[in-house]
């Protein structure tokens, strides 16, 4: 049974990791938290759902869903982040949240508040090993998530684009003076981050077979914990923290009294800020500004 729980934890963890990575990418280049992220996560399945409802085949609908959230991400940047003066850090917090909530209200008014069944009708074989069962969907999700995250790490750490992004994250002025187009890179980051959010949303929608306007809410705040514990701005940290948190949550729910898993996560978040602000798995050096 433990093995099965671990697999469930891994599934949940991969979703947390994907969302956490999205948060981290934006925080890295803008030093602001994009709280609309989880709402973009929610939007993609609805876009895909609408597409499928009008007869578009599942794979195209999924692509549309991801494109939809990516596009919304760009709109989000233009509307909610670009106009904010840099020193008004809480501004990004509030406007992105507003954007997200507005998005949610639109979805509620268009689709109602109840759960809507969602499925591609694809039936894939289950994989069995060592007494554990991994459904075809789960396998695909895991592989996809792992590939994407590995790919992201490679891009960020080994390519020129990644180097530009890291330069931008460390010192925007210097980077732009060295020829890094700030606006283009930030837009690209938002595109990728939002696409990842959309993908995560589609994965969850497919797994649970249903979508609703509030599906992003629990992930929103939990994923915040992921990025903090993993270290704000630290890609690898977010991935590790996401996976671990997913595993912990499932194990806690299976073996511990209810509500304790949430309390544990919050306490861990607070403890991280107090004792290890660069994150539990922070690979970053703490920079002390003198």
């Amino acid at each position: 049974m433990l093995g099965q729980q671990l697999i469930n934890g891994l599934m949940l963890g991969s979703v947390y990791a994907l969302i956490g990575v999205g948060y981290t990418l934006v925080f890295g280049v803008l030093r602001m938290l994009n709280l609309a992220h989880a709402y973009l996560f929610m939007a993609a399945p609805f876009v895909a759902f609408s597409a499928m409802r009008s007869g578009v085949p599942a794979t195209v609908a999924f692509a549309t869903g991801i494109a939809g959230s990516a596009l919304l991400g760009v709109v989000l940047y233009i509307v909610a982040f670009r106009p904010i003066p840099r020193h008004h850090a809480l501004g990004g917090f509030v406007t992105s949240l507003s954007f997200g909530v507005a998005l949610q209200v639109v979805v509620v008014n268009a689709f109602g508040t109840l759960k809507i069944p969602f499925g591609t009708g694809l039936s894939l074989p289950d994989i069995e090993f060592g007494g554990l069962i991994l459904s075809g969907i789960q396998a695909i999700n895991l592989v996809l998530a792992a590939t994407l995250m590995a790919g992201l790490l490679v891009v960020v750490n080994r390519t020129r684009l990644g180097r530009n992004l890291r330069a931008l994250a460390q010192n925007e002025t210097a980077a732009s003076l060295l020829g890094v187009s700030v606006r283009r890179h930030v837009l690209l980051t938002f595109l990728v981050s939002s696409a990842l959010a959309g993908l995560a949303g589609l994965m969850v929608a497919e797994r649970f077979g249903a979508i609703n306007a509030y599906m992003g809410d629990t992930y929103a705040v939990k994923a915040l914990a992921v990025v903090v514990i993993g270290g704000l701005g630290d890609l690898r940290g977010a991935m590790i923290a996401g996976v671990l948190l997913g595993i912990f949550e499932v194990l806690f729910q299976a073996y511990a009294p209810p509500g304790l898993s949430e309390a544990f996560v919050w306490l861990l978040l607070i403890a991280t800020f107090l004792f290890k602000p660069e994150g539990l798995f922070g690979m970053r050096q703490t920079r002390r500004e003198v």
Partner: protein
Amino acid sequence: MGVLLAEPVQALLAINALLTLSLLFPFLAGVWSLGLPGFMAVGAYSAAYLTLAMGVPMPVAIVAGTVLGSVVTLPFGLLALRIRGIYLAIATLAAAELITLFFSHFELTGGVMGYTGMPYLEARWLLLVALATLGISGWVYHSRLGKAMKAVGSDPIVAACNGINVAYIQLISLGIGGAFAGLAGACFAHFYSFIAPANFAFHRTVDILMFLVTGGLTPLGALVGSAVLTLVPQYVTALERWAPAFYGVIVIVMMAWMPAGLLPGNRLPRWHIRQRTQATARRNFARREVADATPPVPGDIGATRRVP
């Protein structure tokens, strides 16, 4: 006008005003505390328990709720001394969630199903309380203490070099915020006669934050922001379904054009407009310069502790 006479609207106005005022003081002093729902919950549940289970007269219970709301800010204050800015916002958010989580599992006050049966408090009393609190807020804001809070909020190191004990001021501002939120919670409990952990979710903080951002970091701003954003969806009934989206659009527009809010100087509009055109010009100029501002780094979390 008829809408204004409706009790639920009055109550909503009063409670939102109280909550926005409770958010004002910590933020004024630079303490980005999102612990609001937690303080409100403590005020609500304690006052409700006192009247329901212990038969305490309502006014006394409400005062108790206020005091407890203030007391519970102490651990948050300790957080505020070690963590700063947006990181503190997240940490206090988590801490408030912990409080709500506690009440979800606290069977003595109904757990998740909620707590009900509190004696009824009429809306006009809520309005009175809100007005009184507004008066107190205005007084504190303009007093020496208020100026010290503003100083601490804008430049804690310089404030300290001028003799101000930054930690005390931050704790006091949090304490005031907690008291107002506790008061709001206690009143909430006795108007609706029903409270449940779901009433004290992050969602509420989001709304109140929007009110404050729209109105500006002043008591008058808090009042105007909360009143306007609470009333408009009431008047335009078609808007009620879209209220959060409406708030969202307002906030986004405000951030772009008036980041300081509607009444940042605690002055009435006419005076404000003349200042605003100067301010806008200065801000647009500053925006280009500010791009160089060093972003906060995770390791830079510590409060005004000196560089070791």
